[in-house]
């Protein structure tokens, strides 16, 4: 049997199941979400078409606005610190000595366990009852306070959770980029007497540009949307200070069951994500052209 792949339907049969599942469970929900967002929804009963009213409600809601501020603070701090730690780890652990390979695996552990479990374990450390925080911070003159009951320190704990879990993710992405750099470049620069800092700035950073951008955007997409950290570690408190957008959306939809506005908010968040994803896709293409 001879098959001409270009003209026949044959290849599509291989791809069809995947496409069907993606359309059904990602595509259709998106359409339904938009439809719901334009209606008044009481639990699951759509009562009337309300146009953009749900969007208006969401945009004017103080809870959403507060959550935007919390998300911005959380995302920016988490992004900068996670990226910094990830880059430092990637540079430090790049060599394939046994010690470094082992350490890489250890750093990855917080990333591989369930996000919920990681946040739960950190909550137990930050809880006043555990006595761990006072044991560490007491000698530094910090009073025995509950980290999670003060807005600022609760946000710091949330950022710590993000850095603790996701630095390994940044490390792996950046390390893949580092491994792609031709080692002879460094050797040549060394012969020419270039210092380590100079080599880093003039060789590593420029050649790592695309992996760095990809890492930053993938981290940003993750931090803007994540809700597990806040739900488990701080519960969004105290006083909604750490209620991020993902958590606000979750509560609007599944605690208050306001499905109209929740779908509107979800769609707005998705639009914002699409912008980030669009940038990411362009970077992927650039990477392929470059390498």
């Amino acid at each position: 049997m001879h098959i001409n792949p270009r003209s026949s339907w044959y290849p599509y049969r291989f791809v069809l199941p995947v496409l069907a599942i993606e359309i059904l469970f990602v595509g259709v929900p998106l359409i339904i979400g938009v439809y719901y967002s334009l209606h008044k929804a009481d639990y699951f009963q759509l009562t009337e078409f309300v146009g953009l009213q749900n969007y208006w409600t969401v945009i004017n809601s103080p809870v959403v606005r507060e959550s935007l501020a919390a998300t911005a603070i959380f995302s920016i701090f988490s992004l900068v610190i996670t990226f910094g730690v990830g880059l430092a780890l990637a540079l430090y652990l790049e060599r394939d000595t046994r010690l470094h390979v082992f350490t890489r695996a250890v750093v990855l552990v917080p990333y591989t366990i369930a996000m919920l479990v990681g946040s739960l374990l950190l909550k137990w450390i930050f809880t006043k009852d555990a006595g761990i925080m006072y044991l560490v911070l007491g000698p530094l003159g910090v009073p025995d306070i509950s980290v999670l009951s003060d807005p600022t320190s609760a946000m710091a704990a949330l950022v710590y959770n993000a850095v603790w879990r996701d630095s390994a993710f940044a490390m792996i992405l950046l390390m893949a980029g580092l491994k792609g750099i031709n080692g002879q470049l460094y050797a040549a620069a060394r012969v020419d007497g270039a210092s380590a800092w100079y080599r880093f700035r003039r060789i590593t950073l420029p050649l790592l540009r695309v992996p760095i951008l990809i890492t930053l955007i993938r981290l940003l997409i993750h931090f803007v949307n994540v809700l597990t950290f806040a739900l488990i570690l701080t519960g969004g408190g105290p006083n909604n200070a750490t209620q991020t957008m993902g958590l606000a959306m979750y509560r609007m939809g599944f605690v208050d069951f306001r499905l109209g506005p929740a779908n509107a908010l979800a769609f707005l968040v998705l639009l914002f994500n699409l912008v980030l994803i669009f940038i990411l896709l362009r970077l992927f293409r650039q990477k392929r052209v470059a390498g």
Partner: protein
Amino acid sequence: MSAPWKRRARLRQWVNVAVVVVICIVALFPIFWGLSTSLKPASDILEYPPKLIPTAPTLEHYRQLFSTGILKYIVNSTIVSTFTVVLCVVLAALAGYALARFEFRGKAIVLFLIVAVMSIPLPSLMVPTFTFLALLGLNNTLLGLILLYTAYQLPLAVWVLYGYFQTIPTEFENAAMIDGYSRLQALRRVVLPLSRPGLIAAGLFTLTFAWNDFVVAVVMNSSDDARTLPVAIYNYLGFFGREWGPLTAAAMVSIVPVILVFIIFQKYFLSGMTGGGVKG
């Protein structure tokens, strides 16, 4: 006395070890502390100063969990994870193979969609997906979770396998097909056995996702019968409140399988994270 350069080299070695020790403590302490707490008798958990290693280790919290029915949630998680992995790897192998071997119209669009779906963050999908799943009547079922997890992990699995199949020369399967194998037989008997590292990487990623997921499961399933382990742990958080013994024990029950799998298959994880090729 040793030469100065030797001393400097040894000093550097010590600094290296010290840095690595600090990194390991920061990364692993929360897990170690959870393990320690889960083994302490209830009366010792809140003592100050806290003891890092339990003086009288006990399994009472684990016993309590199993007597209150955690086994059911473990079984649910296992069922969901197993079916998700099988479904995902089989479908991804088919699609990845077609993408790696055939030229067809729309291929670029398919690849584009795969990367796009891979980047969509789950939380922003949950509200409409719940609405849709409830319309289908698949909420509160394990099948619903299996289908959703498959949908969410397929893009990554296809991407990994697509990359891996490209590295396998076509001669083997061509020879097999000349010997009378059909395309599918050649894929199953020749290409797949050669692609073990790629299949393992795709399967592992799907497995840890399905085992660890909380956000999808908590939204879709509220019934006790269809509850998976992470959601059960979340409920314990409300139920046990400040009883950290059973809470940390439940955390350990979730972690142990993941860490075992991770130790055994460590190198395969990395390829999935970069969304790139696998080194065999």
